[in-house]
């Protein structure tokens, strides 16, 4: 008997008798042509006892340097936030962990109500009236907003600021190659903010959507008003990617009149997990509700007039509309979105402001204290970019000190070859920031020669 199955020899005999065959092979031989049957065992190792799998996975995990092993200033899209214990306690409940999509609403009211609450929280944070029940993750949500704009406007061009996450820009280009759209990138200005004039100049009558990010990839707080105005002048949709936590203190994209706000939800109570799973969010103006991608939960009543929730507006979706669907997405990231809404309930109306203010103050403190040349000298939150004269040396010294200084900008931004992106969360204390600053200062001393070994192969 293999792991997790339960048919005994007696069961097997009884079941085969009921089917009316002498053996299972009889079924396979009658149904699967000889030439496509595998005539050998799979070339995989034999199965292992649970304790051996446990130990094997433990050994692999031990070869990773994680955020408890070092003080990490890495961010660039995913962040080392504290995840409160009540999230673990709730999302490991089998009633949330093991059901499928709520196709039978009578026995899925828990999951459906969670979606409704999630949609409300995202709607509040983004300042937009409608939200779906979540997307795969951030960058593919950006690309999906592009697809919505293409359906809505029938136009063929996207204009995207270089301040949008490099993974989002690349994902949009990947998707756009499929449905035949062109992606035009516009530059950042000398202060690491989107160059509004260049953006305005790139928008034409064939532009379906304009994409910006708040705060942008470098942590710059963008001046959304003029960007939205520039984007809208020819009737294009304006899509803003946003980090949900700083929205606790930043004026929400919705109040600047953006059409769609999307983003990566990891920072809301989700693990880092080496990049996934997390969730994406997708909020929009009311007029797009019948074209939005993904699941949407709606309130209704049951046969006895009691309040209940269902998946709604399903005529947008692939299982009903097939080739006429507004997107091919099948599911939401329900469990990750649940972690998100629990996290936002835990923070609460005041907490989300307090946490964002703490990040804001520590971000500015860190930038001051590091004392390096600023790539984006204007207002920043949660992240900032600086030039480090001896970047390799800093990384080598920092590694010895148990510190990961941040993300090297060179691969994505050759113009910032010596750039370092430093991320700040509520876990990065003043003491830790001061330690990083000391390492940076040491590097500027010409007598101190660091190891020049690069870290990124």
């Amino acid at each position, binding site marked *: 008997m293999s792991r997790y199955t*339960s048919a005994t020899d007696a069961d097997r005999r009884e079941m*085969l008798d009921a089917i009316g065959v002498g053996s299972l092979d009889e*079924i396979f031989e009658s*149904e*699967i*042509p000889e030439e*496509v049957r595998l005539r050998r*065992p799979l070339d995989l190792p034999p199965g*292992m006892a649970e304790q051996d*799998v446990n130990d094997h*996975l433990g050994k692999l*995990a031990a*070869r*990773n*340097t*994680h*955020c408890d092993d070092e003080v990490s200033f890495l961010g660039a899209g995913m962040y080392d936030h504290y995840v*409160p214990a009540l999230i673990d306690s709730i999302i490991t409940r089998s009633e*949330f962990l*093991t059901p*499928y999509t*709520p196709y039978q609403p*009578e026995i899925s*009211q*828990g*999951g459906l*109500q969670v979606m409704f609450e999630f949609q*409300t929280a995202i709607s509040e944070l983004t300042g937009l009236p409608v939200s779906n*029940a979540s997307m*795969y993750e951030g*960058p593919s949500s950006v690309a999906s907003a592009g697809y919505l704009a293409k359906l809505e406007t029938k136009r063929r061009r996207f204009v995207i600021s270089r301040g949008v996450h490099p993974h989002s820009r690349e994902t949009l280009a990947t998707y756009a190659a*499929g449905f035949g759209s062109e992606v035009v990138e516009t530059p950042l200005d000398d202060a690491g903010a989107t160059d509004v004039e260049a953006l305005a100049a790139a928008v034409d009558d064939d532009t379906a959507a304009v994409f910006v990010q708040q705060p942008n990839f470098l942590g710059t*707080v963008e001046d959304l008003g003029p960007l939205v105005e520039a984007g809208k002048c020819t009737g294009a949709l304006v899509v803003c990617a946003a980090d949900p936590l700083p929205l606790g203190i*930043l004026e929400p994209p919705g109040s600047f009149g953006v059409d769609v706000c999307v983003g990566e939800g990891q920072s809301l109570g989700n693990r880092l997990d*080496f*990049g*996934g*799973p997390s969730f994406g969010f997708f909020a929009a103006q009311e007029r797009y509700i019948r074209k939005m991608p993904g699941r949407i*939960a*709606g309130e209704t*009543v*049951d046969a006895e007039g*009691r309040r*209940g929730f269902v998946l709604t507006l399903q005529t947008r979706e692939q299982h009903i*509309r097939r080739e006429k*669907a507004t997107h*091919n997405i099948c*599911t939401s990231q*329900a469990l*990750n979105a*649940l972690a998100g809404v*629990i996290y936002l309930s835990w923070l*609460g*109306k005041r907490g*989300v402001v307090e946490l964002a203010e703490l990040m*804001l103050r*520590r971000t500015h403190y860190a930038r001051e204290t590091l004392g390096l040349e600023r790539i984006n000298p204007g*207002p920043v939150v949660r992240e900032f970019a600086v030039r480090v004269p001896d970047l390799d040396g800093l990384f080598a010294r920092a590694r010895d000190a148990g510190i990961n200084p941040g993300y090297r900008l060179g691969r994505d931004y050759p113009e910032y070859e010596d750039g370092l992106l430093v991320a700040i969360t*509520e876990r990065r204390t003043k003491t830790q920031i001061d330690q990083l600053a000391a390492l940076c200062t040491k590097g500027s001393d010409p007598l101190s020669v660091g190891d020049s070994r690069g*870290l990124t192969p």
Partner: protein
Amino acid sequence: MSEAVGATRTIYERSREGRRAFAPPVLDVPDVPVADLLPKGAIRRTPAELPEVSEPEIVRHYNTLSKKNFDLDTGFYPLGSCTMKHNPKLHERVAALPGHARLHPLQDPERAQGALELMWRLQGALGEIAGLPHVSLQPSAGSHGELAGLLLTRAYHEDRGQERHKVLTPDTAHGTNPATVTMAGYEVVKVGTAPDGGVDVDDLREKATEDVACLMLTNPNTLGLFDRNIREIASIVHGVGGTLYYDGANLNAVMGISRPGDMGFDIVHFNLHKTFTQPHGGGGPGSGPIAVSDRIEPFLPRPQIVRREGSNGSADAWFDLDHERPKSIGRLRGFHGNFGVFVRSYAYICSLGADGLREASEMAVLNANYLKALLGREGIAEHLPLAFDRHCMHEFVLSGTGAKEKLGIKTLDIAKRLLDHEVHPPTVYFPLLVDEALMIEPTETEPKERLDHFAAAVRAILEEAAEDPEVARHAPYSTPVRRLDEAGAAKRPVVRQPVP
């Protein structure tokens, strides 16, 4: 507080001004006014209306909600095409290890060797199971894998200087197939179904032109039937220069028994949340890796996980992210895919090994055929006839036409009445080809008694309907709510809590 009221309140309706669960860390840097750090226009004027609730009440709220969900750990869940098999508990433990859960995706590959090795090993195992050597773990779900497959197809044809416009899908296909075709900029051409439930080969031959980029197929198909003409189908499509895409939704039927690569497919997606035990989570997360043949490999998404031989005479191989892929279609998402899912699926493959994976598929087929036999007995079969009378693979499809005509109850009524028997109903009204369809997939992890109970429940519902069809028509009765007004919900959508 009445539970009847309390049970339907949202977290917002539990909110009271001034309550809180979160205590912020101490401010250890200068208390600079926000107005000195942000421009006036950027500062939020109206706070986001998030709930104000204490920790004990948050816990009670979500625990109360959880009790209104039916889940796989509690009962039988034969939802066709979804492979609701047991989710081993070990997987949650190993996925939660800090070396996995607390690992930043941009950690230097040199310092994430365990994670990259795990991914590389999983790629190898999936490639072997599919019979296709090159794997990308990046797609986030089956539908995302499908999109990847068609973008790869497009890149492959364009690389050869060809522009093609059509993608063939059988009329039994999952809805995601045609939806993906449109999203990838192609036109859907439907291929019919033959009397034996497989692809209508003559229809295919007629529609397979030089303008066809790809055929998307599920095998066994959504009727649970293995297409015996698969080699011929492959040769027709390859004959006109198209690619063959395998929707891996039904891979649980054939692990170690038959491989898509050996059938002639060029591109396969896996649903790690179906075949490889990632818990469905109420609708996600999933993960949809793809495996491809040599000719498609140059176009795979980047970065790829690669194993590099040790340099300078060092014997130790190491693992890396390869971004230098000039013909790649590019990224499909951020970072490297749903790593947390990879951990669980890799643990599953380690636990079962080659023999165990094959046995899992064998038991899935045994369970499905046994349940099909039970439901084919007198008293049931005349009301719920089999759509196609052959041995099935891991699932099968019944038609509720008999019950509708003779008993006056629809498939929907049977599904709702099953809720009162404490089992999850099958997938209903799919595939579209079958009237009043019930698509049943028991999976290998169900013991015989659960299947017996399900068959008895179906029989009891039909017998009850013969006496009084009104009972089923108004079911369910024992659930937290009764049938819900879905039409009303769509007509006047209320998709968020009104906040004062």
